[in-house]
């Protein structure tokens, strides 16, 4: 409800009425004697206008209060009527005190009612000035009319005495009301500006504290910040200087173009040390030599730090065109406000971070889920082989993968691979790699051929930065032979008697070379297996496991552990290895997946029969999967 406009409108009508009133009086006076019709119309007009004026006054009286409180006003009307009526019926001088009393009581009520004008406090300065001007004019008009003792009032008197009294009372009421209004407004003017700002601050802060909890979007938030800044500080424009990738850019510009604000940014950053700014500062643009390039003639500005986690993240700028600098009040307002803005921006950042974190965690959950489904559920079953496999995923899925292919009762294919990169993308590539090896193993036996075919497929599908290291092997149980090819993967360790032999045929990682180099440099080795030979397949998650001084577990120590335990069954060996790795890196987080696959050649045990499968229990907080052994 715009009280100002409404009241101005009403005042204008009253003003208009009063002018007409005066004009008509003139006319009537000049004509002297004329048909009574004219007078009659004139009186009707007066009655009409008076009624309207009275309604308007009543409306003004009721401004800013509930209708229940209008008992004073109603009482006043009663006394107005009593005064009027008594003026009609009490003609004798002795009794005139009765009507005089009514008039006095009415006047007192008028004064009381006129004092109820608290609503002007809520008008803006501009509205108050308008009101001041209007109230002067109207008060004068009312006083002139009320004091009118010329022929006109005599005519009125002759027309109807009570009516005359009634009109006079209304005019007096109007005069009192507006003169009170005038003086009150006059006294309000000096404080109007401060009051305005305080009111603005209160509403802005309310608005903003709401925003702090509501705004999720950073852009939306900063727009609101600059918008409110212009309101709070009565500035012409506002923006935020934001630091992004070591560059300072203006964001959330309010009432100012990007180019202008970018120019002024340079000036501000010359004058202010970004990291040291701890409170709102004034700057005069008269010192800015490039001001001519700016399309508006700005004069003064304030800069306030927007901090998050104790660091300056941005600067809030408010700028003015007119001569007057920002005063202390403005400074306070902006400073308070920038504190609020900092909190909000910090909140928004935290929220974004936690959303991002949650998203990443969800993504990793998916990646782990994919990995879990891709890896074999259980180890294959061959009389002549002990097989054990351990896989411990890193928090960020590392891209390790292994699989077995039971080609026939006498042939077992196996693969171990490591996809470069981590997370969901590595998991998807793993799924692809699994598919490739699974289908290739059905048609091709030679590990070398399989890797060549896998490389041909992967070099087209992998992006230029990604590669896969792998070892593919095939064990022919009838021949007691193993063939192995290696594409950039960790060597295969063969434990025979007391020696650990690193089997490392030449080979480039899958997807690295786009031309024939892969084929040219790929070798395949054939190993004739001996009783109790152990074949160790692993990924660099083991050898590159780190301790708190960032030392590697290392290939050397790994082989030592293997040799120490070589006479145990495969599950024992792998348990021991994992135990050692875990102990070695217990003060350092596991950065990469750990995979260890062990195969032990036991051609004689097949006759003994009796096998047992058991799961190895969880070790610490790290997960053991797919561990099974055969006796």
């Amino acid at each position, binding site marked *: 409800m715009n009280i100002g406009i409404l009241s101005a409108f009403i005042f204008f009508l009253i003003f208009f009425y009063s002018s007409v009133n005066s004009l008509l009086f003139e006319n009537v006076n000049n004509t002297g004697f004329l048909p009574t019709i004219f007078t009659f119309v004139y009186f009707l007009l007066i009655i009409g206008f008076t009624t309207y004026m009275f309604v308007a006054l009543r409306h003004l009286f009721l401004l800013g209060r509930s209708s229940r409180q209008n008992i004073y006003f109603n009482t006043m009307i009663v006394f107005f009527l009593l005064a009027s009526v008594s003026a009609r019926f009490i003609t004798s001088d002795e009794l005139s005190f009765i009507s005089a009393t009514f008039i006095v009581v009415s006047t007192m009520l008028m004064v009381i009612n006129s004092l109820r004008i608290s609503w002007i406090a809520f008008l803006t300065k501009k509205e108050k000035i308008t009101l001041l001007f209007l109230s002067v004019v109207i008060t004068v008009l009312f006083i002139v009319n009320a004091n009118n003792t010329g022929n006109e009032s005599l005519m009125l008197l002759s027309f109807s005495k009570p009516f005359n009294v009634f009109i006079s009372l209304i005019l007096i009421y109007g005069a009192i009301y507006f003169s009170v209004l005038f003086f009150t407004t006059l006294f309000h003017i000096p404080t109007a500006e401060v009051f305005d700002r305080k009111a603005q601050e209160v509403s802005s802060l309310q608005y903003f504290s709401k925003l702090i909890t509501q705004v999720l979007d950073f852009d939306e938030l900063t727009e609101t910040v600059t918008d409110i800044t212009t309101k709070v500080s009565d500035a012409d424009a506002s923006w935020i200087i934001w630091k992004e990738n070591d560059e300072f850019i203006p964001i959330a510009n309010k009432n100012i173009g990007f180019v202008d604000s970018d120019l002024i940014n340079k000036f501000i950053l010359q004058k202010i040390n970004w990291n040291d700014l701890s409170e709102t500062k004034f700057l005069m643009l008269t010192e800015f030599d490039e001001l001519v390039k700016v399309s508006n003639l700005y004069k003064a500005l304030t800069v306030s730090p927007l901090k998050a986690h104790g660091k300056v993240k941005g600067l809030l700028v408010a700028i003015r065109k007119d001569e007057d600098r920002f005063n202390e009040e403005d400074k306070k307002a902006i400073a308070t406000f920038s504190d609020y803005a900092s909190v909000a921006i910090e909140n928004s950042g935290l929220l974004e971070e936690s959303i991002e974190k949650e998203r990443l965690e969800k993504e990793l959950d998916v990646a782990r889920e994919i990995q879990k489904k891709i890896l074999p559920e259980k180890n294959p079953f061959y009389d002549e082989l002990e097989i054990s496999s351990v896989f411990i995923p890193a928090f960020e899925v590392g891209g390790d993968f292994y699989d077995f292919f039971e080609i026939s009762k006498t042939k077992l294919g196996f693969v171990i691979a*490591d996809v*470069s*990169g*981590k997370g969901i993308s590595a998991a998807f590539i793993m799924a692809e790699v699994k598919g490739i090896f699974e289908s290739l193993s059905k048609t091709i036996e030679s590990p070398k051929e399989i890797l060549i075919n896998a490389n041909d497929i992967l070099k087209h599908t992998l992006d*230029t*930065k*990604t*590669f896969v*290291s792998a070892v593919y092997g095939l064990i022919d149980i009838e021949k007691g032979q193993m063939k192995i090819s290696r*594409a*950039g*993967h*960790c*060597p295969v360790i063969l434990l025979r008697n007391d020696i650990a032999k690193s089997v490392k045929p*030449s*080979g*480039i*990682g899958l997807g*690295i*070379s*786009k031309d024939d*180099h892969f084929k040219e*440099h790929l070798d395949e080795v054939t190993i004739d297996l001996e009783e109790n030979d152990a074949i160790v397949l692993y990924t660099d998650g083991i050898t590159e496991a780190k301790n708190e001084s960032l030392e*590697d577990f290392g290939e050397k120590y790994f082989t030592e552990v293997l040799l120490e335990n070589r006479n145990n069954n495969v599950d024992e060996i792998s348990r021991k290895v994992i135990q050692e790795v875990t102990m070695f890196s217990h003060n350092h987080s596991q950065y990469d997946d750990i995979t260890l696959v062990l195969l032990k050649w036991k051609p004689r045990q097949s006759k003994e029969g009796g096998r047992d499968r058991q799961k190895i229990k969880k070790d610490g907080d790290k997960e053991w999967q797919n561990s099974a052994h055969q006796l």
Partner: protein
Amino acid sequence: MAEFSTSIVNKGDVSIINLSGYLDAHTAPTLENNFTELIDQNKFKVVVNFNDLAYISSAGLGVFMAYIENIRNNNGDIKLTNMNDKVFNIFDLLGFPLLYEIFKTEEEAVKKFSESSGVGSK
């Protein structure tokens, strides 16, 4: 993980990128930017000095793969020098020495460029 930084030195028409610290998935973009800049400036003779590099992950290796094709197509090459044993071992396992020229010293690599008059050897 730990810090990673690069610096570029020009020796004639050969650009030398010095690496130090840990090159992994998080720090790889720095090196990627270096390569992009060099390619933008039509500098295709690149020597990467690993002298101060402590660790390289598979994502770090990927950086070299990403740019080698473009650089060789422009008669340039990426030559690698001054690797410590650990870093070399990682390159070696993956067969990088079969695809990239790896030298003991920076001088050898720069010299190789002038001998082959800018034609990539592989």
